[in-house]
């Protein structure tokens, strides 16, 4: 366990609701530079690069390496949306363990505008292009509105519970100057918000932004500044049910079980939790799948743990408050967890945070997401 790769830096650009004039490549470079500065490392020390972006084309990871002036021994690109950051972390940890690289920069970000979103949602995959786009379905909101209805019916929940997720995350966001929504949100405001695709309202969905995130992963003997964060485990279970279920159970129960077996630690006991929050309903599904809702009472968990006790879940405000910068959404929760464990979360710092659980979810193949992964992180004393 002592030879685990370590996260030693994290960075994020400003998230912007409107185009800033920066290209995707420039945003990725800015986030990477911030993460390296956080680690006290220089671009010339990087020998591995991983990138996730929907808007990099026609460039690929090697084009980015060229423009970043990197000579590399290890290189990858990942297209798996909300699961991409942890997929890259899984590969990069193995690469460092194998000696293929010593200093890996993981980048994720996007600069997407209206027409880009339309083509992204209509040509997400062959099934979407052939079966969903012709319906004028308007993007994944419609699919998650159907999923949220199933979730409400299965667990007997009302909109107040989903609103509780949005309200609790917004409380954290009021202390994150990087979040695009920082004003306090009340449950009444949530309930009165405009519908997007009922039962989804505005605050069940992420605000779309441009921006990028980055982390630096190094071999244990690389000297960097600040608290190192060991990657104790990264586990994935993708396509668990062939899209033949109801979408209310992800691959994460298997992930949590395997993480516990491999690390000897129950992931549900971590001090900090970042779950992939593209929709409020997916926060609840992942918290259950990861074993955090021990009695299965979702309504109580939201009311007591999230709202009354302020349990540290998505402490940046999550994507629901901070914004979703395309593929950077997959790395946003990882960046926040690394900041918390390195005691660099400023006004929202959770005192004594030593361990973190981060999950990824995504890639709607036809009716719901198929990818799921999670990482268990621990600050090295």
């Amino acid at each position, binding site marked *: 366990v002592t030879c685990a790769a370590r996260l030693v830096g994290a960075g994020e650009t400003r998230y912007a609701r409107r185009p800033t004039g920066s290209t995707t490549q420039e945003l990725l470079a800015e986030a990477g530079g911030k993460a390296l500065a956080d680690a006290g490392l220089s671009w010339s020390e990087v020998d591995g690069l991983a990138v996730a972006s929907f808007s990099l084309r026609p460039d690929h990871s090697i084009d980015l390496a060229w423009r970043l002036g990197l000579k590399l021994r290890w290189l990858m690109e990942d297209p798996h949306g909300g699961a991409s950051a942890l997929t890259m972390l899984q590969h990069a940890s193995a690469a460092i363990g194998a000696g293929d690289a010593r200093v890996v920069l993981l980048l994720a970000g996007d600069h997407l505008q209206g027409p880009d*979103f339309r083509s992204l949602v209509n040509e997400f995959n062959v099934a979407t292009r052939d079966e969903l786009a012709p319906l004028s379905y308007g*993007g994944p909101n419609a699919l998650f509105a159907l999923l949220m209805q*199933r979730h409400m019916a299965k667990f007997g929940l009302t909109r107040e519970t989903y609103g509780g997720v949005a309200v609790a995350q917004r409380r954290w966001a009021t202390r994150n100057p990087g979040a695009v929504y920082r004003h306090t949100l009340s449950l009444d405001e949530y309930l009165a918000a405009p519908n997007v695709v009922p039962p989804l309202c505005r605050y069940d969905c992420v605000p779309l932004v441009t921006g990028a995130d980055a982390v630096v992963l190094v071999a244990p003997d690389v000297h960097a500044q600040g608290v190192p964060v060991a990657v104790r485990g990264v586990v994935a279970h993708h396509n668990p049910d062939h899209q033949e279920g109801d979408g209310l159970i992800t691959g994460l129960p298997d992930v949590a079980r395997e993480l516990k077996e491999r690390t000897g630690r129950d992931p549900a006991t971590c001090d900090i939790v970042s779950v992939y929050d593209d929709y409020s309903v997916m926060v609840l599904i992942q918290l259950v799948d990861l074993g955090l809702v021990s009695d299965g009472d979702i309504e109580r968990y939201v009311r007591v743990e999230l709202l009354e006790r302020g349990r540290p879940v998505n402490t940046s405000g999550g994507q629901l408050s901070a914004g979703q910068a395309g593929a950077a959404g997959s790395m946003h929760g990882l960046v926040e967890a690394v900041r918390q464990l390195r005691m660099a979360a400023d006004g929202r710092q959770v005192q004594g945070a030593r361990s973190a659980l981060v999950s990824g979810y995504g890639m709607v193949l*036809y009716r719901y997401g198929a990818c799921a992964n999670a990482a268990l992180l621990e600050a090295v004393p």
Partner: protein
Amino acid sequence: MTGVLVARCAGCGRLAFPAPLVCHRCGSDSWHSTRIDTGIVEEVAQVLHAVGGTSGAVTVGSVRLDDGPLVVARVVGDIEPGRQVRVTRTAGGICAGAIGEKGEQGASATCLS
């Protein structure tokens, strides 16, 4: 032509949509297609705001085809969950409309336009 073509596994008879390449149940890579005309609506959702600002509110729904898989369809007419519907493959994707002459005409008029 009404109905929707669904893949049937030559090995185990399982129905799947969209068509797979290999059957996860029996491992066969051989598929036939079979026509299904009706199903039951499980949920519906009215799209009031679309990503990228496409115009016009549409209603989509989950429809469990008879003997078969769940599909996402455009739902035309005032149809509530639990209703049996007729499904049709159109230029606008799979459409689900009320069973009966009036509903089918309504479905065609909306989906093919």
